[in-house]
Every structure is written in C-alpha cells, then in structure tokens.
C-alpha cells in the first residue's frame, strides 16, 4: 500500500504557497502549508511531513533559519531532526555569507538550497530524490 509523501511548505508569501501547493498536489504529493515559523512547527508535529520546503522569510528577521535550527537541534524537535529541509529564497544569498562563523553555519545550513522562482524540473527532482530515499529507508 503506497501512501503519498507529504511536503510541508513554510513561506510567508501566500502567492508562492498557492502555486507550489497546486504544483505539488498535481505531482501526487500531499501538501501542508504554513505562513510563518510558529505555524510551521505546529504543522510539523501534526503531520510529520517527509520533506520541508522552507523560505528564509527575510521580512521577519530570517525566521527561516530559526525554524531550520529548531528542527535540527532543539530537543523538542528531536523526533523530526532527520526530516530533510529544502531552503528557498528569492535572493541568491548562501547562508555561508550571512553567517561568518563556521559554528553558526553548521547550525543553519539546510540540506538543500534553491532560489526562487523555483526551477520546476529541478525542484521536483530534488523532492523526488529526498522522499524516495526516505521511503526506502523505512
């Protein structure tokens, strides 16, 4: 019995959420969306997604990095630490530039970094790869 992999999209841009949700549902994913960090973390617990698409959310003091760090390193989210995170942003700013100290960088480095607008074939390929790997592992 095959279940559909779930993608959690955390992005403060409602338009971006709409188009990505439709795209992914069309590709056979179950999609959950959240417009901010707190809501995102709540949905993470509720739905235990297979992959998280996370925007940096620059307008709220790089909330995206905070969410990424929380999922990967906070004891509260230990059960979710292995869920891959694909970070997206409209600016081509790698976290390496924003965070100068290596120790900081390790805390914020996402599994994968993509720029917006998403290159749809590449985006789908990345999601397919990470979700396949996960279903193979379980």
């Amino acid at each position, binding site marked *: 019995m095959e279940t559909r992999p779930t993608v959690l999209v955390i*992005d*403060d*841009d*409602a*338009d*971006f*959420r*709409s*188009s*990505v949700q*439709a*795209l992914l*549902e*069309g590709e056979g994913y179950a999609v959950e969306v*959240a*417009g*901010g*960090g*707190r*809501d995102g973390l709540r949905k993470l617990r509720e739905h235990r997604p297979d992959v998280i698409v996370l925007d940096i959310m*620059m*307008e*709220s003091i790089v*909330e995206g990095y905070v969410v990424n760090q929380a999922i990967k390193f906070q004891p509260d989210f230990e059960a979710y630490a292995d869920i891959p995170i694909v970070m997206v*942003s*409209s*600016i081509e*700013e790698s976290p390496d530039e924003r965070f100068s100290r290596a120790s900081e960088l390790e805390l914020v480095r996402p599994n994968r970094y993509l720029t*917006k*607008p*998403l290159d*749809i074939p590449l985006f789908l390929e990345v999601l397919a790869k990470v979700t396949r790997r996960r279903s193979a592992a379980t």
Partner: protein
Amino acid sequence: VTEAPEGRERIVVIDDDYAMRLSCRQILARSGFEVETFEDGTQGLVGVAALKPSLVVVDLKMPGLSGMDVVRRVRDIDPEIVLVVITGYATIGTAVEAMKSGAYDFLPKPFKPEELRLIVARGLERRHLHRKTRQLEVERELMRRRFISFMTHQLKSPLAAIHQYLDVLQRLGDSPDVAGKRAEWLERCLVRTGQLRELIDDWLLLAKSEGSTLVARRERVDLRPVLEGVVASYEGRAGGAGVSVSAELPAAEYPVLADRNCVMVLFDNLITNAIDYNRRGGQVRVSARAEPGEVVVEVADTGPGIPAEAVELLFEEFFRVPPAATPGDGVDGGNAGVGGNGGRRWRGTGLGLPICKRIVAELGGGIEVESEVGSGSTFRVHLPAYREESGSREEAETSWA
C-alpha cells in the same frame, strides 16, 4: 550630586603632588567613582592602559614624562578616554595647547571640590553622548550594507511569486485543479505586479531626487480639496479594511505655499499608512488648523502604535514598523490584507515616509509623530501658510473664517 551615568566609572589621577592625589581621590570617590592614583606619567600610562578608565585627570607640570606627553599617549591608548588637565596659573598657555592635543578641559590650581566634580561630570556626559552617536553611526552603516540585499529581496520576491504562478499555469494549465485557479492566479499576478510597480515608482522618485528636488513649483495650494480628495479616494480601501475615515476641516480654506503634486503624494502616503496600520473597526482622523504662519494637518490612526525605538528609524528608507505580536504571530496572520505582500504581515513599500519627510523638508515645513503603543499614532505636518501678496489683510482673514 555627581552621579556617573552608568554604574561605577573608573577615573585615573596622575599627579606628582601627594596632597593633590589624596584630595582628588577623596572628592571623586565621594561622587561614587572608582579612583586610582599614580605619581608620575610613566606609571600613570601603564595604569591607564591596564585599567581602561573613562576619564584621566593629569597634572601638566610633573617631573619626568610631562603632562602634555601623557595627554598625547592616552589619546593613542584610547581616544574615547576623557582627559582633564590640572594646571597652575603660570601654565594656562600649555593647558590650551593640551586641549588642542585632545584634552577635554583644564582646571586651574587651586580649585574647589565642586569645580573638579563639575568638570568630570561634564566630561563623562560628553563621552556618553559621543559613544551613543558612534553606536548610531555603526547601526546606520549596517543598515546601508543590508540595504542592497534587502532591496534585492523586495524586488525579487514579488517577481518570484508572479513567475511561479505563470510557470505552473503554463506547465499544468490543462489539469483541472490548476485550470480552476487560473482566474484567481492571474488576478494575484496583477495585484503583485501593481505593488511591484508602486515600489519601483517610489524608489525611482527617491533616487531621482537624490541631489535634486522633488518640489517643482511653489504655488498657492488649498489643502481642503486636496485632503478631501485623498480621503474620498481611499473610502473603498478603508471600508475593505473595516476602518472609518473622517476629515475635520472647520475652515473654508487652508492655503499653503507648496507644490500641489507633492502635497498630494504626502497626504496620500500618510492616509494610506493610517488605513493600513490600523485595526478592524478603527478610525482615521484627518484634521487641519491654521496657526500663525502655518497650516497644521494631523493624520491620526487607532492602529498598534509605534514603539519608541522604532520612531527614530521611521523616516529611514525601507524601515517598516514590525507587525505587532498578535495571537496569530508567526502564523499567516490572515488580517484582511490591504496592500502588502502575499504574507500580509508587512505593508507598504517602506519608502512612503522617507518621501514624506523629503517633501516636507523641501517645502520648508516639518513632520513629527506622536505614538502610543496599543492606541495609535498621530502624524503632524506643518506647512508654511500662503501669504496673499497682492490681496488685502481683510481678504486673508475672511478666508480663515
């Protein structure tokens, strides 16, 4: 009652005269300072380097290293250390020279305890002011550096959202799910395009005025029709946001010396801000009054208010008041969005108030804001009244009736 502005501050006294060291120590210790004394310049400098005091009192005339040398070297150690030199009447000339080398002030011998306390207090006050200013400069520089990255983000994120809609439409336009959303998505593309255009317009307006002026002409402008016009044009927007807008314009006319287009932009910005940064069921009150030589217009809202620390930055480019922490904080707030990006959490281009400030300054007026967190903000604009040059006084007076 000389109180150090922050905690116990350290003062170093360098004087070869034992009695002088003792009395300085007593006077300053009584004012709550931590005092260390040294009997010559060489030891004194070692002490200054190790102790990093806020202020150094140094006698100009000492055997060995002179007070002048001490002044120069303390400046090298840390230019922020305040230097006060003590000098006999015979060496006032040297004291002036010391001040040219960076000493803050001098104290002629003999001096009263009160005089020492006063000069120390003033010197420290200046130090705090100086440090505060420098801190502000550093923050401004950081803002400038983040500016490019932020501007890029502001321009690119709406483009990304639009592009993403169109790309998905093109690829999956035939699938029933996507086809059903087509009209809604196209509408959103238009809205985001409009916002992007607004941002670019504002940005270009500011960039263009860099080095030149926004105000093209100075003419008689009656603010009554301007304000009424702006209020009327935003009734729909206000209604959609559940905000009521009222204008209180008791006089028949409010003539100012201004540029009609500029004052329209000015009040357009202030009134849309007051609508957007408001609460459902809130009010916007626009009022005008004539004062000697000027017309004062107030735009008051019942929004979340502006925290004191944000008020200073309010007129900086791209600064926007962070959305208040509401119960929906971090969640897609879902406020009946007017303007703003898809997230609805931040509104406006972040350039409106800098433009207002520029316009008002060019017109020779002023703009200020009064705000209370939780109850709202009032923006007050002062514009120079138009003076009838040919018309009679009576005419001018009746026009205010």
